């Protein structure tokens, strides 16, 4: 092992000059070497592809060994698995989140109108069980998703009827879209886009009727209730089948089925990446994820030094003091993350309310502007967020390429007098004995808000705003409710107002512009219009007004454009209309977040973006984490 920094740096520089190391110069973990010598594992040259990815470490080349411990919460927490060991997509986001780069694919080509995408795979690339990984596997995944008979969960953001895959040769795969999609590569790089390299045909084929006619019987014999369920469970985003072949840096040892307390992963001997010295990644031997039932337990594990690298569930503003204080005794440090969210809480009046009186009132822009100006955001920041953050509307973050100052800052200054004046001008001058203004229909204006009871911050903010709005004669009836009740009300369009945090603060704005116009089911301010845009065929679909329709048309135009500059210009127009319309009321721009890292851990990123679309920490390449001796 090279043990001086000088040597490793100079060697790294040398590698950079000569390009990837030649076959035969690669080295592997001691345990794998022993297995090769014992004859239980093929030699490294046969396990690596001919042209492995050479990962440039964040700090330095590492050494083998150690276990990376983190925690999961409950049964649904596959998100953390997919963010950490699971992020090995066909094409990936780069670390800075500026572009899409090849990952599993060696390279790719896109035609001029963004309808044909050709991916070239690595010669000799293998699944974790040693079987070859080929274009057939990609076609298999696409075929399953495009199959109308497949009733399992499908990755979001793809229109399956418009996608078809074609195997040119075992190493070349072409996707053809029936309509242009300039964001298709970005979609493939998101956490959802990984589906395409998740299903091994030689393993999952037995559950898919188009491959094996008796798939249903096979699935039932394996204990599933249908082939659909077997595929959903064993081939894509769930991790209940530990035998399934993967392309990840670690392969699964224990299934994550909600019963096992400890989910373990071991080094994948067929992983396709090496460091500049030719050492096969990953450095860390094992990954352990403990399934817990509550966040307090995770916090306790963190301060006790039982978490090596994670920010999942516990990294809130409220927990920060405790976790900060525990650094010395727990043997960890805090690194910062840049929150890609642009808001802690966005209050969304239901603009497509079924009650005509409420709808009329909520659709008055001045009404919403008055409510927004009556919020004392500085107080919210001081009370709820320990003074961290700045008043902000639902708008891309200041560091985003889409930053729009009007959208971000309008109506954020606390000015109850101006708010009162606006409401008076609307003709809402009558008040009842409690000082609550009467609406157009003569009834006191009472807005009901159910905030999800497991998101305590929303409730804290809503309680403050209730007081703020009393000043301008508006009654906010904010209650805590079980989350499924909250969602049930939105789905049935029976909510007055909804509150949720603001995703879409950085580049994810393009892929999920839910607060900038009615885009998906999370656009709770205009469910009916969103349904129209999604062409769901739902009974509550409604034709939106002209400005909203114009935004939707612009977005469709954006999708059809492969040119990034053009996309940015079109998105700018959408945001201008959003600023003019002022659909929703934002509160606070989140300050930087944090991630906990064992003080011995090397190659830990600092300031990485934190969001879902860009599945932090995945794009940093977690295989390069290592424990310093």
């Amino acid at each position, binding site marked *: 092992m090279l043990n001086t920094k000088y040597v490793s740096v100079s060697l790294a520089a040398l590698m950079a000059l000569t390009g990837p190391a030649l076959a035969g110069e690669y080295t592997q973990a001691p345990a794998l070497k022993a297995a090769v010598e014992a004859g239980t594992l093929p030699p490294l040259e046969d396990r690596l592809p001919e042209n492995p990815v050479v990962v440039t470490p964040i700090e330095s080349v590492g050494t083998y060994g150690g276990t990376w*411990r983190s925690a999961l919460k*409950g*049964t*649904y*927490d596959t*998100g953390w698995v997919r963010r950490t060991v699971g992020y090995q997509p066909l094409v990936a986001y780069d670390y800075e989140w500026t572009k899409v780069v090849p990952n599993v694919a060696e390279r790719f080509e896109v035609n001029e109108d963004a309808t044909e995408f050709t991916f070239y795979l690595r010669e000799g690339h293998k699944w974790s069980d040693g079987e070859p990984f080929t274009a057939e596997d990609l076609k298999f995944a696409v075929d399953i998703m495009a199959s109308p008979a497949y*009733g*399992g*969960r*499908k990755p*979001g953001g793809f229109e399956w009827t418009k996608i078809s895959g074609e195997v040119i040769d075992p190493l070349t795969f072409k996707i053809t879209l029936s309509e242009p999609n300039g964001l298709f590569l970005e979609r493939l790089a998101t956490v959802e886009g990984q589906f395409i390299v998740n299903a091994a045909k030689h393993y999952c084929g037995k559950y898919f009727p188009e491959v094996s006619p008796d798939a249903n019987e096979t699935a039932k014999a394996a*204990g599933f209730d249908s082939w659909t*369920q077997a595929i*959903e*469970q064993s081939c894509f985003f*769930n991790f*209940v089948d530990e035998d399934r072949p993967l392309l990840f840096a670690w392969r699964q040892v*224990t299934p994550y*089925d*909600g*019963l*096992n*307390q*400890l989910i*373990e992963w071991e080094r994948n001997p067929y992983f396709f990446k090496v460091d500049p010295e030719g050492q096969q990644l990953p450095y860390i031997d094992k990954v*352990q994820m*403990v399934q*817990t*039932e*509550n966040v*307090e*337990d995770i916090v306790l*594990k963190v*301060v*006790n030094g*039982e978490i090596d690298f994670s920010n999942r569930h516990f990294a809130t503003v409220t927990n920060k003091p405790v976790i900060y204080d525990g650094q010395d005794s727990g043997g960890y440090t805090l690194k910062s993350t840049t929150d890609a969210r642009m808001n802690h809480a966005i209050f969304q009046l239901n603009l497509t309310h079924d009650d005509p009186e409420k709808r009329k009132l909520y659709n008055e822009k001045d009404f919403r502007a008055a409510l927004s100006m009556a919020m004392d955001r500085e107080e919210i920041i001081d009370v709820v967020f320990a003074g961290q953050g700045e008043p902000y509307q639902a708008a891309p973050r200041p560091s985003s390429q889409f930053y729009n100052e009007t959208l971000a800052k309008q109506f954020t200054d606390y000015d109850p007098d101006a708010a009162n004046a606006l409401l008076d001008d609307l003709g809402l001058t009558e008040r009842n004995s409690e000082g609550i203004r009467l609406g157009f229909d003569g009834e006191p204006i009472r807005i009901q808000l159910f905030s*999800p009871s*497991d*998101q305590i911050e929303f409730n804290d903010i809503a309680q403050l705003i209730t007081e703020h709005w009393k000043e301008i004669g508006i009654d906010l009836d904010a209650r805590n409710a*079980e*989350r*499924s*009740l*909250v*969602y*049930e*009300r939105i*789905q049935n369009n029976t909510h007055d107002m909804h509150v*949720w945090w603001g*995703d879409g603060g950085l580049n994810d704005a393009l892929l*999920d512009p839910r607060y900038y116009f009615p885009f*998906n*089911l*999370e656009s709770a301010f205009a469910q009916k219009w969103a*349904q129209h845009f*999604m062409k*769901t065929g*739902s009974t509550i679909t409604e034709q939106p007004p002209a400005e909203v329709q114009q935004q939707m048309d612009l977005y469709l135009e954006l999708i059809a454009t492969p040119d990034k500059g053009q996309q940015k210009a079109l998105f700018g127009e959408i945001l201008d209309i959003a600023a003019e319309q002022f659909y929703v009321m934002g509160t606070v721009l989140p300050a930087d977040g944090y991630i906990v890292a064992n003080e011995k851990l090397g190659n830990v990123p600092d300031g990485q973006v934190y*969001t*879902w679309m860009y599945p932090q920490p995945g794009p940093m390449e977690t295989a390069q984490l290592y424990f310093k001796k």
Partner: protein
Amino acid sequence: MLTYLARRLVTMILTLVALSVVVFVVIQLPPGDFVTSYIASLSAAGENVDQDTIIALRDRYKLDQPVLAQYGAWVAEILRGNFGYSFEMQTPVAEIFSQRIGISLAVELTAVVVMWAVSIPIGIYSAVNQYSLGDYAATILGFLGLAIPNFLFALVLMYICYNWFGVTITGLFSPEYMNARWSLDRFLDFASHVWAPILVISTAGAAQLVRVLRANLLDELNKPYVLTARAKGLTRRRMIWRYPVRVAMNPLVSTIGWVLPTVISSSFVTAIVLNLPTLSPILLRALLSQDMYLAGALIMFMGLLTLVGTLISDLLLAWIDPRIRLGMVGAN
């Protein structure tokens, strides 16, 4: 006696049928269904689900059918010994059950045994030595035990252990033994973790038992037969154990019926706070996510345990107390 048993068994079956209806209705009562709560939890994780998936899921779990049809299907499957599928965990309910029941039983039964073993001597001591220093000490501790909620006690214990001893006491196993097979080492590891939940669960219960036993025994100690027995020359110790204690035990024995279902439910909050791999967290998760077959099966099982427990305690009562036994014969 046999007819009594037969009659009880018939009522038990009828009660179970009624219970199944109530369970199903109650699980259906909250707004939404499994799919709504599934979507909600995905949103919380930052994901979103498209409309097609929602329709496909509702269709797959037959959530669009009327409640009566869903109930019928559920009962028919149960009669065939199939407790259905957990939506959330995508595993047969029976499998989840069999994986967790062992640990649940071990933790809860140990807690119950500890609870009784501690409380009966203390209860007798404080009744016999009423207003002594020991009685006051037991009373103070007992009220503290009753007054401190389990979860708070668990949190305080976690804090103390972390802060003073630098250990986290959550869970029942250290990571290296979580997936291991049973062995002596694993058992020792288990024993080094299990004291915390047992301490927490048994404290409140023991406090209650001490109070009940003390009050009952005090009632008995002043009765004429006690005086008679002493007058006839029985030693105090022998007399107390032989007569008043046996009578005072009646109320305790009749609560056995409630002890059995606690295998799943009593340690609910404790199990979640302390992150125990028992059935309680699974029941809570199932209820929150409206995973109705899993929740239904667990609640039915608790109901069954209550019924069996009541039966056992009635039989025990008859065994301990001749008055009850004779009353039964008289009724026949």
